[in-house]
């Protein structure tokens, strides 16, 4: 994995951007890395966009905030508009093809254009969009092993929803496979 990685995860409130941000930070911590997770929310919480930033580093982390991220996961169109121009040169973005028109995607940017909603639906639960997208990000960036993130599900999913862990792990795997085979 790279020594340093950061990612902005953005989407509608309710698409689960905070959950996958948490999951990624938890997995990074369990892998022995320094991690930070910073949610940004405000009056736009309902219906608008929510986003969070995760930083993973082998060294102690200074800034938990990244204005120009190395990577992004964008689950809806307003998030693409906001974060695509900020992506650092040479960065990679995971773009939800189910909700974002392809002609909005800047062709010069390395992009995994993944139909996350459709794939989630096929796996059996429309709410798995976030996991599909995170899986694709893992495949595209190689930041952490897929298995590490699947294992971390046990730490972030409450016992009440533990029965949903296998399907979440499957969604992560589906996104991961999509990214490594399409690129």
């Amino acid at each position: 994995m790279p020594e340093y990685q950061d990612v902005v995860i953005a989407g509608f409130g309710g698409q689960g951007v905070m959950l996958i941000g948490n999951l990624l930070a938890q997995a990074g911590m369990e892998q022995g890395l320094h991690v930070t997770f910073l949610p940004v929310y405000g009056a736009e919480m309902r219906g608008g966009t929510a986003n969070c930033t995760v930083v993973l580093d082998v060294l102690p982390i200074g800034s938990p905030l990244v204005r120009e991220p190395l990577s992004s996961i964008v689950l809806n169109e307003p998030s693409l508009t906001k974060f695509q121009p900020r992506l650092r040169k040479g960065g990679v973005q995971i773009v939800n093809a189910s909700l974002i028109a392809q002609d909005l995607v800047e062709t010069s940017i390395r992009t995994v254009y993944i139909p996350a909603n459709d794939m989630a639906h096929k796996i059996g639960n429309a709410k798995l969009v976030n996991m599909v997208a995170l899986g694709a990000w893992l495949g595209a960036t190689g930041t952490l092993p897929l298995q590490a993130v699947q294992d971390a599900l046990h730490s972030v999913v409450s016992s009440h929803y533990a029965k949903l862990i296998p399907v979440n792990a499957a969604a992560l795997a589906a996104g991961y496979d999509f990214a490594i085979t399409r690129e």
Partner: protein
Amino acid sequence: MSRKQMPKRILVKGNEALAYGAVDAGLQCYFAYPITPQNEVPEMLSALLPEHGGAFVQAESEVGAVNMLLGAGACGVLAMTSSSSCGISLMQEGISYMAGSHIPGVIVNMSRGGPGLGDIGPSQGDYFQAVKGGGHGDHRNLVLAPSTAQECYDFMFMAFALAFAYRNPVMILGDAIVGQIKEPIRRTAPEGASTPEHLRSLVQDLRIEGYGARGENAPPRLLKSVYLAEGALAQRNRLLQQKYAAMRKDARYAGEELDDAELVVVAFGSIGRITSSAIRGLRKEGRKIGLFRPITLYPFPGEALRIHARGRRILVIEQNIGQMVEDVRLAVGGCDVAWHGIMPGLFIGANELVEPILQALKG
């Protein structure tokens, strides 16, 4: 015990780390009224504190909360409250009364953007209010500024130790970034931390033991801030000033790469850690820049800064319109101090600090 042998890391928000730290430091009573961005503190403590035998009270208002804090402190109990900016403003009367009466207590301010209702974004606009006293009269709070979740945890121990050593209000000043950031902490008391039993023993004479317990003719134990007799208030103020002078030995800071620095950047809390990232990047390009991050904002670590500042350029970065820079200028005297302010409410990353730092390096 070294941190290596400690329990495994847990991923928590700064606010949650504060709650864990408070309980592990021996917190007995917590009184507060909810406000963003510190709501995880009462949320956590509502469950955690009763489990540890303490009392959680959701007060009817911030004014109620701070007066409950005063009452608990007057009984020698480890107590705290938490709020954010506008709520802390409401508490100032009680904080002044606590200071005037020599009563210990911990107040957490996870500040918001201001003035007024402001927003819930990051801001360091409460610096003056925190370090200059905040309430009426000549009083000071000890002020600690954590920048990481681990420091949120560790500084709770320091806060109670200082509050009880000096019988004074101690404020922990953070912001939306410090409170909301989630990162790993180890939940073990920092080295040298006092036990709650020891802290309580420091204020034994505050305890009310009931009529006659100390003999029928024992003088009353009066905790008050009103001194009307001729010369009494002057004497009270002299005592307070002696106390504040004694606190200077507890000034603390964290330094990074200061030894060969041509430019010393002074920044605290969330901005301190963001500045640290910017400096690390510039160091890789061979730029000789160091970070001086005050941990105690009051007492301000001015003497240490004066030593590090000798012969170097100084830049203050803070998320307000220019507050800590005044203390820095007082500390370093003749040195030329540059300042870069970030407007409250903005979220900035390390990249945005590179230009102002390079500018100050050139002079």
